[in-house]
């Protein structure tokens, strides 16, 4: 194995891992606070990819030439609308089920995921969509034959993900809202007794998760350029794998798990086989669950009556 291929895969893995980390935040926060897997989260990410393409197309057809402004406006619009999706999904599909048995919210979540996938397919068509390559700038290291290529978008992905992670870390760790979130996560009933509106906090968590997925959706669309209504499914499982790997319920764990999964997946597809990279990621999920169900940074879960 040549060093440049290895380095290139590391760069690709880092990019992929940041994306997984951003989406994993939605899973890990929701699981931490209400103890359910939000199966519709992957599809929320898919919706944000569509929103990116739509926003960009609308902005360009309005004659806006400034690329930074267009990107920023797209990011804000995608985050806003995707967050509204997160809020609505929680309100329609999960809140009425609070207090029912464990199976009901999971089935409801699967239903929501089908609605989103099929709804987008029905309204936007089943074919693969795309955006033009907007930021072609690349950095190259090495000589003519052996080089490592880093695109500006890849740098952007890593920087933006780290920045949003840092912001979220500050939000959860230092603000009143964050303190309320942590209190609700630890003991929802006690938090309610102490005057925290736990329903509002749960909604907020869905909104935050969806907004993070929207950032991932915008970045991925800029990087790969093409997407379809089915991307949320596989990416969703992988991001969940990342959340479990890092320790479900832990924010730094989500990012760490995402990076590890992204890097190992990129190395696997570079060195072993590209066709089986999804199989590799799913097998990793099963192995982690068997040998270390609490993940790398998670706390052991104690079942109580």
């Amino acid at each position: 194995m040549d060093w440049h291929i290895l380095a290139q895969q590391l760069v690709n893995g880092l990019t992929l891992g940041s994306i997984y980390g951003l989406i994993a935040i939605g899973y890990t926060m929701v699981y931490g606070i209400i103890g359910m897997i939000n199966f519709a989260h992957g599809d929320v990410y898919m919706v944000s990819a569509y929103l990116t393409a739509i926003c960009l197309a609308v902005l360009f057809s309005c004659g806006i030439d400034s690329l930074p402004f267009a990107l920023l406006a797209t990011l804000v619009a995608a985050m806003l609308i995707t967050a509204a999706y997160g809020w609505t999904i929680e309100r329609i599909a999960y809140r009425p089920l609070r207090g029912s048995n464990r199976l009901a919210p999971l089935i409801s979540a699967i239903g929501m995921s089908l609605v989103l996938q099929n709804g987008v397919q029905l309204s936007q068509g089943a074919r693969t969509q795309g955006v033009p390559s907007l930021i072609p700038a690349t950095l190259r290291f090495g000589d003519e034959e052996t080089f490592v290529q880093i695109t500006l978008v890849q740098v952007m992905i890593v920087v933006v993900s780290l920045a949003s992670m840092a912001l979220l870390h500050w939000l959860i760790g230092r603000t009143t809202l964050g303190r309320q979130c942590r209190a609700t996560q630890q003991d929802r009933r006690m938090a309610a007794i102490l005057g925290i509106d736990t329903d509002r906090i749960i909604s907020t968590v869905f909104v935050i998760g969806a907004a993070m997925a929207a950032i991932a959706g915008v970045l991925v669309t800029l990087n790969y350029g093409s997407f379809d209504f089915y991307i949320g499914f596989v990416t969703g499982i992988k991001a969940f794998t990342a959340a479990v790997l890092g320790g479900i319920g832990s924010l730094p764990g989500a990012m760490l798990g995402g990076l590890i999964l992204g890097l190992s997946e990129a190395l696997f597809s570079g060195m072993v086989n590209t066709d089986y990279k999804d199989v590799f990621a799913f097998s990793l999920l099963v192995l982690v669950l068997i040998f270390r169900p609490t993940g790398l940074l998670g706390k052991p879960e104690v079942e109580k009556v």
Partner: protein
Amino acid sequence: MSLTPTPLTSAAGPTAVLRQAVLEAAASFVLALLLLGPIVGLVLDGYQIKNELQRPLLIAALVALGRFLFTLALHTPSGRFWLERFSAHRGKTAILVQSDSDRQHHGWLLLLFIAGLALPFLANKYALTVLIQAMIYVLLGLGLNIVVGLAGLLDLGYVAFYAVGAYGLALGAQYLDIGFWTALPLAALLAALFGALLGFPVLRMHGDYLAIVTLGFGEIIRLVLNNWLSLTGGPNGIAAPAPQLFGLEFSRSAREGGLPFHEYFQLAYNPLHRFIFIYLVLFLVVCLMALVVNRLRNMPVGRAWEALREDEIACRALGINHVLVKLSAFMMGAMVGGIAGVFFATYQGFINPASFNFFESALILAIVVLGGLGSTSGVILAALVLTILPEVLRAFADYRVFAFGVLMVLMMIWRPRGLIQPRRRAFDVEGL
């Protein structure tokens, strides 16, 4: 968009109610427009946009109108009555007790059985294929019902066992030269083995993890079938043999050394014979499986399944080995899925990995959910409805998956125990 409106004091006048209704309708209009405006209204066409904004406007208007009427209706006396009934029923998960006096429909069952046997002789080819498909889904529904409905384990990759069964027949015929009747028990065993392999490590863990692991497993099986070109033929698929009746083949002219069915019985060749035969065998298997499941429910293992679904911690405290009990349900369900797969392969004559995607799992789950998570008759009915209805309503075929999703959410909110409440045999205290 919560179901329960903000409570008004009972003294609130009609103007306050109207005001609230208008406000809520306006809020849902704005929200629906925000959500649907870009996705439904601005259709991507290459790098351009096609403007279809009338669609989200229409949907948002309908949503607002619905919300308005809903809020008003909830403040009428009968609306309040329904709301109270709904809230009172929500928390209840108790199963209805079936006393001996309830069980007098054996005559009906016999009649249904005979009707089911007679049906294929009256049907044309199209109806027959629909019937066979419906029966395959009944079988799948019965199998998944054991896992999800009785044992309460959410299996989102059930289609994997279906694929194991189907490919068991096709690959077995190609490489080991086995026929339908050998493949039937072998594929069932193989699927159960896969179930055990997957279930054993995972069933020890928290229930939610099972859902995502089975989801991943379903994808793994599909991806392996798709990518292992040298063994499975990949996306091009593989042929599966037709069934035989004691060595008699259902083809116009037999292969070397074989004898066609129609020649043996001195009949004119009719391609329907093959389908009628598959249907009859399948129908008998379905009846047998329904009987087995019904019997199992009253046996200790079946009762343990349902007890684990209701309260795992209590069961473990009572000394039930939760891993083994769950594993038995999981393997049983996998086995039924495998049998259904064999029938699917022999009926189609040709299979490829595209038949075993996640939507198939979702469809089977929708059957179980609609049927009532545990009720055998409910699952059979739901499978028939969900497979025959789309055939009748061909024009709405695109909306099928969408409707399943809506159905799952609504059922969980409105009737988590399904349309038909499951009943189980128990001691009826009042009857004693």
